């Protein structure tokens, strides 16, 4: 009985420590973010982006768009890419062995004709079947290859890329016209050191979209989507800004990331055996430079660069979250030697341990912790007061951090014009802690089981399509 009690109490103590540390980290990040965002926004107007747009000395970017069965939206995606404001770039659509009419649609829409394209053999990848170029837009190419997954398609893109920088994007993401300029800003400032940058990803559900651009930002009607909007604010405005300040940013969103091509080649390209290829590449790049003592920086640009569609059904969301968690786990396992390793500086000592303990194993604590703490109380080891106070404080802290994230958005970006939307988000900030968070934890626990059972693959997300089909104004999820 004594041992069991000890276990319960220990677990309760760990749970308490976990919550305290987690909130402390996020609290610290919130402060960092508040200052950083404010100064960034002030600087932004004078950072010379318009001049860079007009300058022959701005480095070229190869945009890589891996596509698998994207028939519904591929033409609109490419159209919005053609409208990007950047002086020198090319678009490589990599068809990853689609079984639908993705290729035909592209060929018809852009007048593609066969043309040879020289490829490096820098990174091993599945066979390329054919290449074609658009007669109308000489910088738009289609590379048709055998199926090999997103990472493999990106690697082919690297092998084909003409410019010193590559931008990896998701086929269904809507890219802001200034996105390349914004994400290239750290590179323009510091080309020797900056090897990768990412920006803010927003949720498009509910927004009014016209000709591939978000013209009106509105909250989706789906409750699940609204909660995700809030989550994204916290993750991007607080989380990523915070990690960048330590040069330990682990995540550059797969939906939109800029990389220096030679850095990606040096580390061997994206890893094809994981579902978290975006995180894994970034960690590998960090390790590569830190272990060699080479100066480098991975930057996060707190500007909105692209919009994605969030799953609105529980099934789709759970598949997505399980996949993300599996990817994180695969990455942490592959780089386990770096965890806690002082050789990797802030990455090894702070970033990776944090992600292991709080992100990866966090769900274990969050799911088991509270019931065990209650059990400890029932066993008479904890006072009721302590239990209640603990729960209330945890709840209030969680809300405070979320409201702070919303405040950061409001003060710095103010994209949501309707006050009603802001009020709704505040309400959901509260509700998020009752139900959504627990669901998320449950899914991520399941992901741990998936990993134990070695599950592979991506699963599917039901895509409603964010207003691309006709290019006319369309509201999603209204």
């Amino acid at each position: 009985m004594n041992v069991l009690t000890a276990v319960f109490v220990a677990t309760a103590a760990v749970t308490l420590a976990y919550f305290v540390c987690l909130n402390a980290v996020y609290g610290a990040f919130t402060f960092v973010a508040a200052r950083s965002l404010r100064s960034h926004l002030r600087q932004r107007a004078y950072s010379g982006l318009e001049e860079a747009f007009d300058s022959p000395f701005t480095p070229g970017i190869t945009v890589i768009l891996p596509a698998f069965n994207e028939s519904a939206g591929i033409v609109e995606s490419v159209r919005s890419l053609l409208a990007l404001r950047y002086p020198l770039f090319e678009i490589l659509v990599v068809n990853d062995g689609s079984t639908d009419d993705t290729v035909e649609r592209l060929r018809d829409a852009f007048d593609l004709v066969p043309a040879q394209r020289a490829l490096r053999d820098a990174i091993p990848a599945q066979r390329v079947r054919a290449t074609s170029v658009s007669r109308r837009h000489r910088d738009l190419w289609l590379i048709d290859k055998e199926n090999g997954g997103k990472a493999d398609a990106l690697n082919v893109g690297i092998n084909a890329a003409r410019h010193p920088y590559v931008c990896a994007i998701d086929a269904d993401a809507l890219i802001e016209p200034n996105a390349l300029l914004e994400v290239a800003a750290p590179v323009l400032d510091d080309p020797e050191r900056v090897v990768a940058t990412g920006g803010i990803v927003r949720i498009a559900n509910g927004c009014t979209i016209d000709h591939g651009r978000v013209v009106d930002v509105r909250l989706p009607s789906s409750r699940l989507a609204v909660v995700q909007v809030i989550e994204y604010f916290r993750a991007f405005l607080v989380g990523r800004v915070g990690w960048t300040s330590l040069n330990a940013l682990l995540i550059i969103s797969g939906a939109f990331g800029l990389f220096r091509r030679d850095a990606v080649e040096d580390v061997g390209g994206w890893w094809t055996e994981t579902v978290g290829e975006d995180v894994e590449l970034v960690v590998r790049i960090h390790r590569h430079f830190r272990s060699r003592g080479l100066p480098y920086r991975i930057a996060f640009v707190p500007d909105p660069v692209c919009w994605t569609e969030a799953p609105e059904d529980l099934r789709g969301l759970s598949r997505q979250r399980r996949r993300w968690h599996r990817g994180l786990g695969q990455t942490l396992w592959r780089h386990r030697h770096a965890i806690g390793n002082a050789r990797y500086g802030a990455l090894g000592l702070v970033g990776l341990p944090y992600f292991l303990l709080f992100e990866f194993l966090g769900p274990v604590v969050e799911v088991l912790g509270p019931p065990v703490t209650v059990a400890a109380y029932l066993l008479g080891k904890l006072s009721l007061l302590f239990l209640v106070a603990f729960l209330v404080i945890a709840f209030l802290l969680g809300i405070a951090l979320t409201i702070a994230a919303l405040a950061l958005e409001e003060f710095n970006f103010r994209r949501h014009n309707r006050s009603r939307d802001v009020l709704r988000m505040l309400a959901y900030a509260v509700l998020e802690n009752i139900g959504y968070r627990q669901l998320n934890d449950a899914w991520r626990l399941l992901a741990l089981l998936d990993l134990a059972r070695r599950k592979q693959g991506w699963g599917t997300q039901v895509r409603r399509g964010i207003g691309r089909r006709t290019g006319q104004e369309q509201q999603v999820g209204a």
Partner: protein
Amino acid sequence: MSDESQARVLVADDEDDVRELVVYRLSRSGYDVVEARDGEEALRLAGERTPDLLVLDVMMPRIDGYELTRRLRAEPATSRVPVILLTARTQENDVSQGFEAGADDYLKKPFNPDELLARVRAVLGRR
């Protein structure tokens, strides 16, 4: 064609200040000016009553200047209406893209309002 003092000019630009200035200048010079905020509105207005000249910005939401010019050229009613493109896009292939779309003239921003007026007069005088 109507004589110059009654010529109808359609000005389309999403930048309010530029549009206001151009409209003012052309009206003061005796033209009948209609304004549009974007490509779609311009198309609609041109459909309602064919203008004698269009001054179009290129970077507009919904339908940009190039696309608008192409569409106007595709319609018999508007296929011969002269188009002057006014835009900040100054790279070489932007200019050639403009002419390929069917524009008659191309004026770069920052622009001189006097020069715009001169070009308007020249183009309308030619027809």
